[in-house]
């Protein structure tokens, strides 16, 4: 018994059990206290409200939605809007951030100074303020009746950007299938080419071949079907344009704000990643006779990515979470829709719970994906 008490290992286990039970007890107390007090005040709890008719409209929605749909559908619309802005924002911020990051390392004095100015100016101004500026800019465009019309069918007004979109046609499903088939073929070609090069040392231009297949297959299908193509043109009707595709001012302002802001951080991450690879690596690659492009692609980038990916993940998470600032400028994201839901139903605890659960899930999924990618680009040690 005594021996057991003096055993560091045993005491360690006891401490851990104590800590875990304390955490659980605290959690149980909070939940229980909330439920008791909500019941004592006669406030209904539970998630039944999700099935009730929402009764409010949403400005933009990727799926069909009307006020007669349920709160669950409304929240789904909000979630899809959040995912849409996060996905497009991440792609654009990565591209812009990489360009700015490389520009900061440029030998050209002006380019490097401009990039530095961009990073310092954008990083140090609160995002909410930037969103208001973007939204102010977008809404100060002329009204629909005096819309700018730079190209036929394209209208820019304070109601957003209106563009012609191709009308729905069964051929588009076939095009998508062709695209997927092209991607599969390209992937197979790359595998085969890499394997052959490792075996025989003879390279194969798989990049060029792959691109040709991915673009060529859908094009061939499209031409074979007789190239059916009609455009749905926007036209001014009553208060606003009808027909065509829309980029709403709220979406545009939020996207611009998130992209420009996050790109400044990504630029610094990219710069640090590239600087982290010693110049000796470049010299060594060149002395082996690799071209500039191959040096960058095969030697510098794989090593730089190991430094870049982990902090990049946290920027992606930041961008996703920052998208909840959408409420300030009227983009109907998850938080905005959930806010309305909370106010109409009075289910504040459940509503906030849903917001937290959704953002946690998105963040964990994104982080899992990036960790997997990180493991893939990490230096393989044998």
């Amino acid at each position: 018994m005594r021996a057991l008490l003096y055993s560091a290992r045993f005491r360690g286990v006891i401490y851990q059990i104590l800590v875990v039970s304390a955490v659980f007890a605290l959690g149980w107390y909070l939940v229980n206290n909330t439920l008791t007090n909500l019941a004592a005040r006669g406030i209904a709890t539970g998630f039944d409200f999700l099935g009730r008719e929402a009764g409010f409209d949403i400005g933009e929605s990727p799926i069909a939605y009307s006020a007669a749909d349920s709160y669950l559908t409304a929240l789904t619309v909000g979630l899809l809007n959040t995912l849409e802005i996060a996905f497009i924002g991440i792609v654009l911020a990565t591209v812009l951030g990489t360009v700015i990051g490389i520009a900061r390392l440029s030998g050209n004095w002006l380019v490097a100074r401009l990039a530095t100015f961009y990073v310092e100016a954008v990083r140090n101004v609160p995002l909410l303020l930037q969103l208001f500026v973007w939204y102010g800019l977008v809404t100060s465009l002329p009204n629909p009746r005096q819309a700018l019309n730079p190209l036929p069918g394209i209208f820019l007004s304070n109601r957003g950007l209106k563009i012609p979109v191709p009308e729905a046609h069964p051929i588009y499903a076939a095009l998508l299938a062709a695209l997927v088939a092209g991607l599969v073929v390209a992937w197979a070609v790359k595998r085969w080419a890499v394997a052959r090069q490792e075996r025989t040392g003879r390279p194969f231009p798989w990049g060029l071949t792959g691109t040709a297949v991915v673009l060529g297959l859908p094009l061939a299908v499209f031409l074979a079907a007789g190239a059916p193509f009609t455009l749905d043109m926007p036209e001014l009707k009553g208060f606003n344009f009808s027909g065509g595709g829309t980029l709403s001012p709220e979406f545009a302002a939020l996207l611009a704000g998130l992209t420009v802001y996050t790109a400044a951080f990504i630029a610094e991450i990219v710069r640090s990643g590239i600087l982290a690879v010693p110049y000796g690596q470049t010299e060594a690659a060149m002395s082996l006779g690799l071209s500039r492009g191959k040096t960058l692609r095969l030697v510098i980038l794989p090593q730089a990515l190991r430094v870049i990916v982990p902090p990049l993940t946290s920027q992606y998470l930041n961008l996703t979470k920052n998208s909840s600032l959408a409420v300030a400028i009227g983009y109907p994201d998850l938080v905005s829709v959930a806010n309305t839901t909370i106010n109409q139903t009075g289910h504040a605890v459940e509503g906030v719970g849903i917001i937290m659960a959704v953002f946690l899930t998105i963040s964990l999924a994104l982080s899992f994906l990036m960790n997997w990618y990180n493991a893939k680009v990490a230096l393989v040690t044998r």
Partner: protein
Amino acid sequence: MKFLKTMAAACLLLAAGGVSAQAGTTFDAVKAKGFVQCGVNLGLYGFSSPDDKGNWSGLDVDACRAVAAAVFGDASKVKFTPLSAQQRLPALQSGEIDLLARNTTWTLSRDTANGLNFTVPNYYDGQGFMVPTKLKVKSAKELDGATICVLPGTTTEQNLSDWFRANKLTFKPVVIEKNEELAAAFFSGRCDAYSSDASQLAGIRANEAPKPEDYVILPDLISKEPLTPVVRHADDQWADIVRWSQFAMIAGEEKGITSKNVDQMLTSLDPEVKRILGVTPGNGKALGLDEKWAYSILKQVGNYGESFELNVGKSSKLKLDRGLNALYSNGGLMYSPPFK
């Protein structure tokens, strides 16, 4: 931003549990601490807005002051908690405030599922539309396909959807959570119309439009908005006090008792006036208050008509008509049960 505030409110709800779990004792708690904690709008001209010295005024503020006058005989014993639309119900539910007088519409679900009790409407409002004069729109029915600016966190969004659905029209909402940002978006032309309670539209037009005469408020009202002070469920004595404080102001107007003549009225021979002013005792005891409770309200806050004219009526910037808010004897809805 609002997400954080909602979070904070939710946490507060969690934390407040241990402190004020007992129901039915708001009156005792208020007497013990010596003031009424009243939730009001962050700033809505005519209803509750602070001046440059931090003094609050408005119709809702007067409702709070009337309760303080009834309880303490001193209308200044009230502290104001400015609340956003989203914060207001949790703040009341959690016990942070004793009374919510924040242009809150009385609805069935709020009165029941949210654990609240509505007292007496202090303003009968209705949701309307404001449009730029140059659109030449004469009626809300012409707004098919319009983009409409609307605040979240109220019954406004739902009313709008209901009305457009009922009339088989379509619209696109632009939902921005802050009054000023939404007004800025509307006045920059992002929306064809701005929809809110008619009294708020008048306030926004008077205070925030670059040129008020460029905007009209359409005559159509698409909803009923009885704006009503609220208390928590299961606190009947407190609800009675809040309710009758409001009735005292209405009864005062019915009987012609004003803040100026209330002292002369003490000698009135009208038995109802004597009962209102506590010359004939009984009503105060029944409510658990001093017999001078209604006298204090009328002396320090004034009757309903005085409060209306000062805050939202012809002598204010809003210049609203009495309309539904006139006494029943003048064709309105303001009516006090007998003080017996």
